[in-house]
């Protein structure tokens, strides 16, 4: 029996490594979960003179989607974002380190799932939200508390696993 111990150890280690292959290295736990949505005051995309801050989001839970026109992964989730918006989910966009003109063009071409889009040209607001890349999506509940963060494109699986369970308890 003792003889098999090293082999069992090897199998155990191999299993740990195998499971690790499915981990997303960009998925870093955010210290903002459970904290109020971080304030910012940014211009609205394509609407000079108008501004947006998280306190202006519609009442009820809402999503903050960080995106950019130069981001390939963002295109992968764009169709799904349009679906979510059509279902009535409140989506607000944060256009991160982008060219406002290109961003507006992209939305005009691909469709606009956002209630409003704030322009974070310098990425300063992104730093406050702990953004490490695009796309990222935050779920903020009806009380204005950040409840979840997803790094990477949104898809039905992520939605069901991560965001849906929270929505049923977030006063939707």
């Amino acid at each position: 029996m003792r003889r098999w111990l090293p082999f069992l150890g090897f199998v155990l280690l191999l299993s740990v490594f195998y499971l690790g292959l499915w981990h997303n290295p960009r998925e870093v736990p955010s210290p903002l979960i459970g904290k109020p949505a971080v304030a910012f005051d940014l211009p609205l995309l394509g609407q000079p003179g108008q501004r947006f801050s998280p306190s202006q989001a519609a009442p009820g839970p809402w999503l903050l989607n960080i995106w950019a026109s130069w981001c390939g992964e963002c295109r992968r989730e764009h169709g799904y974002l349009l679906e979510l918006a059509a279902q009535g989910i409140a989506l607000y966009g944060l256009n991160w380190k982008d060219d406002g003109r290109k961003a507006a063009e992209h939305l005009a071409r691909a469709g606009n799932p956002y209630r409003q889009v704030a322009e974070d040209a310098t990425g300063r607001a992104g730093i406050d939200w702990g953004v490490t890349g695009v796309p990222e999506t935050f779920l903020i509940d009806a009380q204005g508390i950040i409840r979840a963060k997803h790094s990477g494109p949104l898809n039905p699986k992520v939605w069901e696993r991560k965001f849906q369970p929270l929505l049923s308890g977030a006063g939707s």
Partner: protein
Amino acid sequence: MKGLWALLCCLLAATALAGEAQVNASDPQLEARLMGLATDLRCVVCQNETLAESHAPLAQDLRNEVRGLLRQGKSDAEVIAYLTDRYGDYVLYRPPFKPLTYLLWLGPLGFLLLAVWAWYRMVRRQRRTMPDNGP
């Protein structure tokens, strides 16, 4: 031919010096503090690099952010708190020693002790089952 190889090696070595991201020369003491802090912070994009050496745009932004904080007179601890508030402990290049990371820090030593114990047991068993071992 040897001389050419030597030259090639020197040039190659010189590029290693260019590894540190561009240094702002206006306040050398501040920059030294910045680099000191940045070598202990992780670039959250290129996650195996320190904030000091990464050329990622976000790393550049974060270095500027830290530079701004240092100019405001913030202490090293305040800068670190600023970053961990936003990015979590992961932004520290050296993981803090707390219950969550005990396994990370003590694991290797634990495995070593386990291996030594197993080896000791194995040797003792061999001695017992081979009585004619030795003169």
